[in-house]
């Protein structure tokens, strides 16, 4: 399991080992010793090509971290473009946070959201659940894709946001798919290569939280009453990212590639920090972990107990240790890849779902209550356009497509 001390110790040991070995090598052989491997510098460039479908878990984990770093790179002046001169971790405003959110893409009355560059880069209004039919009541907005809401140990709900990159945005806008009537009649939905979606989970940081362990932002958060009803009010709050899905339509992967990250303190008490979603001293009626409050009847403000059901694979752990060391000194050292997931057989017409691997991938703050059966690709393979006429190419964003305004005289 990762911890900062271990990483530092490892690097120190490696340096000492190098010092000890080098003189011996020099004595034994007059040829120049090979230079020690130089750390690959962090890159602001979003990787384009995913590893081969038969690539290793390590290869896809590295690819996922390359995405994570590029997406969380400080944003430049232009929407969706990094400021490659800025140091990684030096800004609250990262590249993906300048992508357009589903709020900005699917406007009321199906108004054209305009070109990618239109409009200011705004603070998020955190009110949407991860996956929601557009006609659900607003109080549903903090629910996870499956199982209900997730309340942290401070009694605050977890908020979700969905953002899309330029390729994805322009595909939707160019085709008019922000309009529920148009997308419902689409013959086929097929996002172009390069499309990318980010689904993130956030929690309100309180004074006792160590903010330096989070990627934070200041956001307008919807307020809910003790029953979970939307009060209609928002307030400004500092929120910390606790989960992040990255979904990328990589060349050669019609089923997309998938990766999910978490903040390390979500459920794990081993870092000396009280977990955000687990209390080992929990008492009372709602302490059974990973059970939806919709089943237990837990009140909205009652903390939900969450534990990790599937441990991280050893290969993923090793990749995390490497990357966490490389982003040391930034809040992102407190994040870990849970797993990538990709189709191992992406181009087989007899196997349209592509045989996802690993089979089970769950983020404890995005799939808290369905961890044993959670699979990004299997779940998203069911995504459809409104009205169900066709599949929506693994994207649930069209659930937010809006009905156009009725013409005058048209019945309401």
């Amino acid at each position, binding site marked *: 399991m990762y911890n900062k001390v271990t990483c530092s110790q490892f690097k120190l040991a490696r340096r000492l080992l190098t010092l000890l070995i080098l003189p011996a090598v020099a004595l034994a052989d007059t040829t120049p010793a090979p230079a020690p491997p130089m750390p690959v510098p962090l890159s602001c460039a979003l990787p384009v090509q995913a590893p081969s479908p038969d690539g290793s878990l390590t290869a896809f984990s590295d690819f996922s971290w390359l995405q994570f770093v590029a997406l969380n790179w400080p944003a430049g002046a232009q929407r969706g473009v990094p400021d490659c001169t800025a140091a990684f971790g030096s800004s609250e405003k990262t590249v993906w946070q300048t992508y357009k959110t589903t709020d900005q893409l699917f406007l009321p009355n199906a108004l054209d959201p305009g070109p990618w560059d239109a409009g200011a880069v705004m603070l998020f209004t955190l009110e949407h659940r991860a996956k929601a039919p557009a006609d659900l009541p607003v109080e549903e907005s903090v629910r996870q894709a*499956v199982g209900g809401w997730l309340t942290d140990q401070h009694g605050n709900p977890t908020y979700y946001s969905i953002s899309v990159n330029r390729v994805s945005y322009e595909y939707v806008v160019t085709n008019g798919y922000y309009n529920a009537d148009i997308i419902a009649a689409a013959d086929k939905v097929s996002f172009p290569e390069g499309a990318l979606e980010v689904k993130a989970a956030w929690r309100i940081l309180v004074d006792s939280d160590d903010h330096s362990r989070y990627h934070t932002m200041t956001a307008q958060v919807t307020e809910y009453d003790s029953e979970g009803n939307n009060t209609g009010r928002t307030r400004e709050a500092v929120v910390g990212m606790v989960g992040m899905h990255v979904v990328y339509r990589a060349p050669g992967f019609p089923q997309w590639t998938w990766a999910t990250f978490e903040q390390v303190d979500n459920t794990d008490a081993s870092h000396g920090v009280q977990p955000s979603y687990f209390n080992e001293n929990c008492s009372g009626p709602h302490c059974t972990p990973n059970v939806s409050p919709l089943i237990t009847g837990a009140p909205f403000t009652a903390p939900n107990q969450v534990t990790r059901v599937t441990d991280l694979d050893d290969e993923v752990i090793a990749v995390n240790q490497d990357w966490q060391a490389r982003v040391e000194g930034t809040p992102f050292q407190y994040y870990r890849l849970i797993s990538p997931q990709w189709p191992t057989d992406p181009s087989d*017409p*007899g196997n349209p779902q592509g045989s996802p691997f690993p089979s089970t991938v769950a983020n404890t703050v995005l799939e808290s209550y369905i961890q044993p059966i959670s699979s990004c690709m299997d779940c998203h393979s069911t995504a459809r356009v409104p009205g169900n006429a066709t599949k929506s190419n693994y994207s649930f964003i069209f659930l937010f497509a809006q009905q156009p305004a009725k013409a005058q005289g048209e019945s309401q």
Partner: protein
Amino acid sequence: MSYLNGPRINFYGGISINVDTANNDQYTTDGKPLLDLNDASVCSAQSDDDVIAYLREEVSNSKGQPYFVRGGWNYYGDHQVVLQQAKVSSSGAPGAMNQTGGLQHLPVYLLGGLEPGTGKGPYGGAVMVDIDPTSSVTSQIYAGGFQIGGGDTPALLVQGHAVSHSRLLGLRYSTSRVQPPYLTPGSAWASGTFQLAFRKQDIVSFDDSDPVLAAIINDPRSQGLVVRYSLFECFPGNDSASVRADLKANQNNANPSLGRVIGSVGAWYADELASDPLGRLLPNVKLGGAQGLAWLDESAARLSLDLVSALEGDNIRSNGQANTGPIGPNLDYGNLIISAGERQIASVPSNPGGYYEWGGLYDVALSTEAVALLKAHPIQITSDKNDLQITESRLRISSDARNLYTDPSDTRKAVTVRVHELGGPLLTPVVLQLSTSSPGTLEDGQFLEFPATVQVPAGATEVTIDLEFNAGSGFSLLEFKAVCASDYHMAFRRYPEHDYSALINAGNIAWADVYEHCLRFFYVLFPAMSKRIPLNDEATIQAVAGELLKRIDESYRPTTLYMPLTRALSPGKVALLRAYLNQLNGD
């Protein structure tokens, strides 16, 4: 005519069969079943989590050896069937097959079905469904098409719904002579042959410049094409220890059965059944159940043999995952010696190392005298090595009626059975003897009423039999026997009567009722379904109600998309689920 004496395209490769095994048992505990497979319900008062934990418990086989988990070797299977690196290995006309031409080495795919109505898809692959989940003889593979070649312009693209049934079931390996690398189900030693038939209107496109494809498809005697494929050496890709470790770590990966496939594509001639070709049946009397087919082409003076499932394999691969390379050799029979009327009339090399490149088919040139002998006498095939003994069944019984679902409202059904003698009409009258038995480990449902014997007159090729159904339900195997014939069977699943009209008519159907009666069984037994749609989550079912309504519609039943894939919901339960989903949709 049969694919055996028409132009054909042969292929071989690997196959993945990802059946869920948790419904192979009712799990009797304390004298009571945990499940009712006929009723599609969970009998236990345990919680869902407890039932799932029970199915994930490690168990031993009858010899006390560790054997996967209680839910079997593939609790997380999703029933998808995928050809793996299957490629064209030869093509041509009988007696003139070759390994050149534009089709050679092209990939071959079984496809999933398009959505009825919209024609969209396919969104999944072919699927295997056992009509009786406890049986080993009632498998079906549903497909929605077939393809040769990849990319945007495949050499052949067929899209149509078809179902194939396991036939020629028997051993391919001696259970005492060869062993798989670890403890596996008995299917490791077995082989079975399936045949899909697609009509000409299902052919979306094909390369008309390819002479073999053109000969198959443009033949005016053809009503479409058949895809015939034999499966063997099928066993779980991962051993018991790996599966247990995987589940213990909650990785919950599927562990599909990985096997070998040898197949042929040919014309579906007008007088043929859809799921079984014409031909003479060739049992290998020394290898339980192993069988082949033969076609005597009198005008061409040629005997064509399909011996894929008749000859004994020499070994089972030692690596469970390595199912896509060259296929292991057959037992070396030297030359196959063909006789009729106690006269040796021809011989052909058995080609034990390369038979599979030719579809496991042999074309044997005959003299005029040999043709006459074969017309009048059963075929005998022996060998000059390893003592092969194949003796034709003089009578062959077959039918497209193989696996049949019946509703409680059905009171009768007529089934047509084809009876041939030496490949043609009956030379003498035949008496078919009918009886029923259990297809698997569950008791015979005894809902079939049928004549004990059926007379088939000389000159006939088929007979139609009227069956009646009584009030029972469950599973039953209707067996046909006759002197000088190999046995034939039909499997039935008769759904129980479920009347939820009181719930439906009262309106405002409760989630708890729908979950208990319609969804819970699948939630605990088929976790792969819930990876896509968590069946225990009311909000999710609410969100996908429209899609579910389509998938449980009768128009989806012949397709790979029907829900549930296992076709285990009775009409009464479907009605309750439909009413609930309609209620959600505001209808």
